[in-house]
């Protein structure tokens, strides 16, 4: 167990700045996800924590101890990669016990630890199987077990679930989270998949273009995104964003969305914050937090596409910059071409500055 502090961390590769002045505190025992699209700097950050890359400037502290110059093997970190590195000529047991054997742990101790870790990862029945006979799903469990058995103070995982199949990924998500709860290791988890970050992490650090955009609990970043990038990146689909400008109406402050018409009145608190603000804004609401009616006051939009994907139906409405998505349950009977009224749930509306993308009136 260890707390990790990143102080003004910068990484440049020649002219390219992979990471711009990152400050982040990861608490002892915390599950922190580094989330962002390809090239956002998340893997670079993790590689520096692991000791695989040296920072250009800034400091990395483990429990207050500066890691500058400390080699990877001395940092007490466990690492699991996307492409699990498993010795295929060895059995599961030999793979799991590899680390402790290299450290010269006594045999009884090794057996005890292998049994414990195999139980946690449901590898009990497979201990004497050769790794080359096992599925990708099982191999990823072995890879996690092989790292976890060393009981590292800090566990680093770089997209460990991206090669396993979807059904198994769902299982692994809840199990990894549960495992971390039991061990209470500090866990840093790199992913481009917002679903994995949302479902497992205690907090998420959302990154883009080498810049930390927001740090918060999954529901904080979902409910109160700091800017338009976070609003769009978190959620499946991401937040709907429409251009407009504030306007007074009988019912209170509204947003005039131009050809789409005028939004329902904003909540008083948000309206107050917005009255102190100049210029154009972006009106945001979540696809899951809007109702659809055939008559009423709201945004009148034509359905352009209907995606029925099991439990959810994603309705695509409107065109171009005025396009939005609304998620309903799978019983929705809606056809393409039909015009519907979209009414965003009042409390879920978020407003951003059109020029900077920053949230206005955030709490």
């Amino acid at each position, binding site marked *: 167990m260890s707390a990790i502090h990143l102080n003004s961390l910068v990484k440049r590769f020649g002219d390219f700045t992979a990471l711009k002045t990152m400050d982040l505190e990861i608490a002892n025992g915390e599950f922190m996800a580094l989330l962002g699209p390809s090239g956002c700097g998340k893997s670079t950050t993790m590689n520096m924590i692991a000791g695989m890359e040296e920072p250009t400037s800034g400091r990395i502290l483990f429990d207050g101890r500066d890691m500058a110059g400390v080699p990877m093997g001395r940092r007490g970190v466990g690492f699991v990669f996307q492409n699990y590195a498993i010795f295929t000529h060895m059995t599961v047991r030999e793979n799991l016990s590899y680390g402790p054997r290299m450290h010269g742990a006594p045999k009884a101790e090794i057996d005890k630890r292998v049994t414990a870790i195999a139980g946690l990862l449901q590898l009990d029945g497979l201990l004497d199987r050769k790794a080359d006979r096992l599925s990708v799903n099982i191999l990823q469990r072995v890879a996690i077990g092989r790292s976890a058995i060393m009981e590292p103070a800090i566990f680093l995982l770089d997209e460990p679930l991206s090669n396993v199949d979807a059904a198994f990924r*769902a299982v692994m998500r809840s199990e990894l989270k549960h495992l971390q709860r039991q061990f209470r290791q500090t866990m840093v988890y790199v992913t481009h*998949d917002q679903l994995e970050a949302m479902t497992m992490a205690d907090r998420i650090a959302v990154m883009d273009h080498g810049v930390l955009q927001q740090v918060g609990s999954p529901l904080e970043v979902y409910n109160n995104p700091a800017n338009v990038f976070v609003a769009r990146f978190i959620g*499946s689909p991401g937040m709907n964003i429409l251009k407009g400008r504030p306007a007074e109406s009988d019912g209170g402050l509204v947003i005039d969305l131009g050809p789409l018409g005028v939004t329902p009145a904003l909540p008083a608190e948000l309206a107050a914050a917005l009255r102190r603000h100049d210029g154009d804004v972006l009106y945001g609401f979540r696809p899951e937090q809007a109702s659809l009616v055939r008559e009423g006051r709201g945004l009148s939009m034509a359905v352009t596409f209907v995606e029925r*994907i099991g*439990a959810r139906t994603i309705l695509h409405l409107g065109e171009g910059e005025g396009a939005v998505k609304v998620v309903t349950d799978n019983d929705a009977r809606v056809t393409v071409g039909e015009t519907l009224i979209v009414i965003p749930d009042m409390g879920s509306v978020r407003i951003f500055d059109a020029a900077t993308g920053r949230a206005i009136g955030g709490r």
Partner: protein
Amino acid sequence: MADIVFRNVTKRYGNIVAVESASFSVDDNEFFCFFGPPLSGKSTILRLILGLETCDSGEILIGGRPVNTLSPAERNVAMVFQNLALFPHMSARDNVRFPLVERKVPAAEIEKRVAEVSAKLHIGHILHKPPAQLSGGERQRVAIARALVRDPAAYLMDDPISALDARLREETRVELKRIQRELGKTLVYVTHDQEEAMSVADRMAILEKGQIRQIGTPEDIYDAPASVYVAKLLGSPVMNILASTRDGGVTAAAEGAIRIAGSVPAGEAAENGVRPEDIKVHPWTEESEGRPAKVFEVEPLGGHTVVTLDAGQSRFRALLRGQPDIRTEALVAVSCEPARVHYFSAAGRALARGAAPA
């Protein structure tokens, strides 16, 4: 007409049966999707349609014409390459022209066909650009234009967007579907992503070990899976499959945690299937019936929440709307509409749904 018909088609590689007695028909202008785990035979079926493989037995017809003995070139179907790869050193126009130049089509004819296909795919204005200057969506349209410039009867795609990030995949699949609708051409599509398959397909075929297990619209298959195998392939999370027991005349699943009042399974049900979104979770109180389930993990998705529950040795998942306040280790009562329960035999075959009480 560009329908594609397989009649009892079998393909073996040595002792391995890659495709076993497959029969299906893809309608003209249909977006037809093959879905299954790795090595289930989906890519082999594409290769058999293309003519890159010949079948050991059975018959393949394209547009009503038997093609078993025809070469790939004679079959008039086109493949859009995986990851929609374009030649980076060529302009979009040269990429699109490439299949015709290779076939030594006269220049005037080439220009005419490039103009036609470009108009259909709305890429006329970007033809001068190299791929590096195109957006993802534009690149995709150029790649499809390159496949369609020969005017094939049908086109095929093998997991074309699997290498993209999750977010980009969600947008790209919709774009692919729109393009197919606009073009109105038969598209045979392979994917290993169940959400993608359900999003794009008019109809889909579910494969297991070279055999077709079910064919239908995504909705039909999702709502009425023919077997446990199919039920567990679709959905996020997938359907819970739980041992079925009788408890005082009431069918119960998950060791009594889910009581299915009033339902009458036709025949002997060994297992019950319940979709996570059909499970309701309430706080456990003294009045609750059956037995409680314990919350193992709570996964917030924002718009929904996945709750993993344990009852005895049974572990199952519920998908709840919104952001309910549920904590791990809490005891909860679980219920499910009887009409939403699926019944499966010991062999894993779907039985008729339980009839709701009259």
